[in-house]
C-alpha cells in the first residue's frame, strides 16, 4: 500500500501553520478596529466587552489564542528547521509545538473564565 504524504505529522503542522496564518491575518483588521472603539467610544467598547463575556465568545477567544500560540510555536519550529543544523525527531518537535499551544490556550481559558 502506498503511504500518503498526508499521513505525516509534519504535513498537518504545515496545514495548521497555513490555516492559522490566514485566520490571524483576517482577524487582525477586526482586532484593530475594535480597539479603536475603546478610544473613540469607550461605552460602546465596554458594551462589546460585556458581550464578549458570553461563554461561546470566550471559547472563540480561546481558539484565537490557541491559533496565535500554534502559529508562534510552529513558526519557531520552521525557523529551527531552516536556520539550525538538522536534528532527528521532527515528529517529536511537532508534538511539542501542538502541546505548548494547547497549554497556552488552557492557561488563557482558566484566567478568562
Amino acid at each position, binding site marked *: 500500500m502506498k503511504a500518503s504524504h498526508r499521513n505525516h505529522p509534519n504535513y498537518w503542522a504545515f496545514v495548521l501553520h497555513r490555516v492559522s496564518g490566514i485566520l490571524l491575518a483576517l482577524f487582525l483588521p477586526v482586532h484593530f478596529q475594535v480597539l479603536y472603539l*475603546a*478610544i473613540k467610544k469607550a461605552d460602546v467598547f465596554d458594551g462589546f466587552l460585556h458581550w464578549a463575556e458570553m461563554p461561546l465568545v470566550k471559547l472563540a477567544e480561546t481558539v484565537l489564542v490557541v491559533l496565535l500560540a500554534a502559529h508562534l510555536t510552529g513558526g519557531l519550529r520552521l525557523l529551527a528547521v531552516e536556520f539550525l543544523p538538522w536534528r532527528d525527531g521532527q515528529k517529536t518537535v511537532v508534538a511539542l509545538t501542538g502541546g505548548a499551544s494547547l497549554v497556552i490556550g488552557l492557561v488563557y481559558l482558566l484566567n478568562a473564565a
Partner: protein
Amino acid sequence: MTPQTTPQMSPDDNLDIQSTHQSETILWLAQRISAMVLAVCILVHLGTIIYAVQGGLSAAEIIGRVGGSEAWLAFYVTFVLAITVHAPIGLRAILNEMTKLSRKRVDLLCFIGAVMLAYLGLKVAIRFYNLGVVS
C-alpha cells in the same frame, strides 16, 4: 515529426529573471527576520493577554496600562510593523500557490493589505499612547 522549438531568451529576459530571484530572496529573508521579531512580540502579547484578562477588561483598564507609556508605544509600533511585513508576504505565497490570480494582481492585493494593516495598527497604537499623555 513536428519541429521542436526552443524558446529564445533575450538578455533582457535574463535580467528580469535575475531581478525576480533577487526580490524573492529579499521577501523570503524579510519574512524570516519579521518572524523572529514577532516571536518575541507574541510571547509578550500572550503574557499580557493572560495577565490583563484576569478580573475582566475595560477601556479604562487598557488606557491606564498603555496610555502615555513610551515603552508600550515602542513595543506596539514594532509589533505592528513586523506584522505589516510578515502577514502580506505569507498571504502572497498562499495566493500565488492556491489561486489563479496573476502574480501582479497578488502583489497589488498584498501591498494594499500591508498599507491597511500598518494604517489601522499604528493609528490604534498612537491614539492609545496619546490618551495617557498628561498635557
